[in-house]
């Protein structure tokens, strides 16, 4: 005998440690339908941005979210630079790429670590976090903080990488390489991980396109959409890297794809350190931001991030709006969760790497 009932999950959700409310229709152990209700931690940051000048907004946007805390100010600065016609020196463009990719590695490792935790494999979770520690130390040593790098300013970057720091960074990357390869092997072959994550949370290519999902979720479903390739910004058009993609579109493939992207990121950082030109790291002087509108896009660890800026010529933006990757991805949860088991819900939710603090800002 089967019975349909509604299972409320949240707002304090097991997988997220961020508030999100799910109304899940369940028949027996099987999920029949999902409804999402967001808005529990709305912080009004877009309104705050209208009350702060352009410099203050760099710090404000950095605090939107800790894991992509470099993508936000970088995209904001790009939007301002586009509008004011500021040219960022080439060395600064490379430094921005380095900061972005270091953050990407740490973010992806965090996500796969949490996945291990949700399958109940806590020793693997702790190991993944320890591997990630190499990147955390790198951030602390290069930028002075383990999460908020504070690297971008309007017109350039704040810290330079000299020979000593470059050697340190290379050392961290060298130490990371074998660890990452080993971790990939575990995630790929471990029987526990495989049984819990393969064939779960399926999203077909067609559905991925229909929901316009972005980032690793799209790429694991066969949509090889990566802004670093589609619309290169900063120094990405001078760097060699492979856009990772997969066709399986399940929880397992998303985790593996993130690990492969982390490997690509290491190579990108190394290329940057090799071919970074000498020169200034910021443009000279202060430039007034004229009235007008601009848009900037980047590939954050979770996918495409869009900033829209409107200025009336004063020193505060008239409107600053951003669209974050999770916003596109979480609607697709309804497809991924349909027909899954109740026990798989946290794993599926985690596989889109949701960021509620970005989405509700």
């Amino acid at each position, binding site marked *: 005998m089967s019975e349909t009932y509604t299972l409320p999950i949240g707002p304090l959700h097991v997988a997220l440690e961020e508030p999100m409310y799910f109304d899940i229709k369940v028949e027996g152990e099987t999920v029949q339908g999902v409804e999402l209700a967001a808005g529990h931690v709305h912080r009004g940051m877009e309104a705050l941005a209208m009350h*702060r*000048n352009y*410099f*203050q*907004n*760099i*710090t*404000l946007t*950095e*605090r939107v979210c800790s894991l992509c805390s470099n993508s936000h100010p970088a995209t904001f600065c790009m939007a301002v630079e586009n509008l004011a016609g500021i040219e960022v020196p080439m060395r600064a463009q490379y430094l921005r790429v380095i900061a972005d990719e270091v953050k990407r590695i740490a973010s992806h490792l965090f996500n796969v670590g949490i996945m291990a935790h949700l399958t109940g*494999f806590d*020793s*693997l979770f702790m*190991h993944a976090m*320890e591997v990630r*520690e190499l990147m955390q130390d790198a951030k*602390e*040593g*290069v*930028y*002075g*903080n383990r999460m*908020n790098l*504070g690297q971008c*300013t309007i017109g350039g970057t*704040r*810290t330079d990488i000299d020979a000593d*720091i470059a050697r340190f960074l290379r050392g961290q990357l060298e130490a990371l390489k074998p660890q990452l390869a*080993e971790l990939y*092997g*575990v995630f790929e*072959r*471990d*029987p526990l991980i495989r049984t819990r994550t393969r064939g779960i949370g399926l999203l077909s290519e067609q559905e991925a396109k229909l929901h316009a999902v972005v980032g690793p979720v799209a790429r694991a479903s066969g949509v090889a959409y990566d802004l670093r390739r589609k619309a290169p910004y900063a120094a990405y058009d001078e760097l060699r890297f492979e856009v990772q993609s997969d066709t399986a579109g399940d929880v397992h493939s998303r985790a593996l794809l993130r690990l492969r992207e982390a490997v690509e990121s290491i190579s990108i950082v190394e290329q940057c350190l090799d071919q970074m030109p000498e020169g200034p790291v910021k443009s000279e002087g202060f430039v007034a931001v004229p009235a007008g509108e601009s848009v900037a896009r980047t590939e954050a660890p979770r996918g495409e991030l869009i900033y829209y800026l409107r200025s009336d010529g004063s020193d505060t933006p008239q409107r600053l709006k951003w669209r974050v990757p999770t916003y596109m991805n979480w609607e697709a949860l309804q497809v991924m969760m349909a027909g899954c088991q109740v026990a798989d819900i946290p794993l599926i939710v985690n596989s889109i790497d949701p960021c509620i603090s970005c989405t509700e800002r």
Partner: protein
Amino acid sequence: MLPFLKIMVRNLLQGPSTDPFPFAPAKTPARFRGAAVHDSEKCILCGICRHVCAAGAIQLRAAEDGSGMQFMLWHNSCVYCGMCAHYCPTGALTMSDNWHLSHLGEDKYTFSEDSFVPFGECAQCGARIQPRPNVIVEKLGGRAPDQFLLCPKCKRESLVKHASDTNLSQFREKQ
């Protein structure tokens, strides 16, 4: 064989990888952004730090007797972004590697960088001007140190005089 077993055994043999803090000092990199430090000897009260501070942690209060300004940086409001130190034109603000920020609730109103920056005096008429500390005169006012120490009014007058002198000498040369 479970692929993770090898890693687990290795990790067990290696022992804990966390810092033994507070029983031993935690390593802190040189570039670490900790509590901001203000040096009143270098400050010219330009207010740029306050302008870029998103947290509103910096206040500049005029002293009642008009002799200077009180510089206040509240460590509790500060988010350690380092923008103030980055934009301070004189290097008066720096981010230290001090991350020992825990304090008692009763200390929350005294947990700040609190320093008094006296105003300067115009070298000519003695009027009150922004402070002109020696280090700064060397750094910023190197090109025309005399004018750097003047109030806006005396500076204007000296500039006009300088300009007319030059014009006059050029005029004489042409003749």
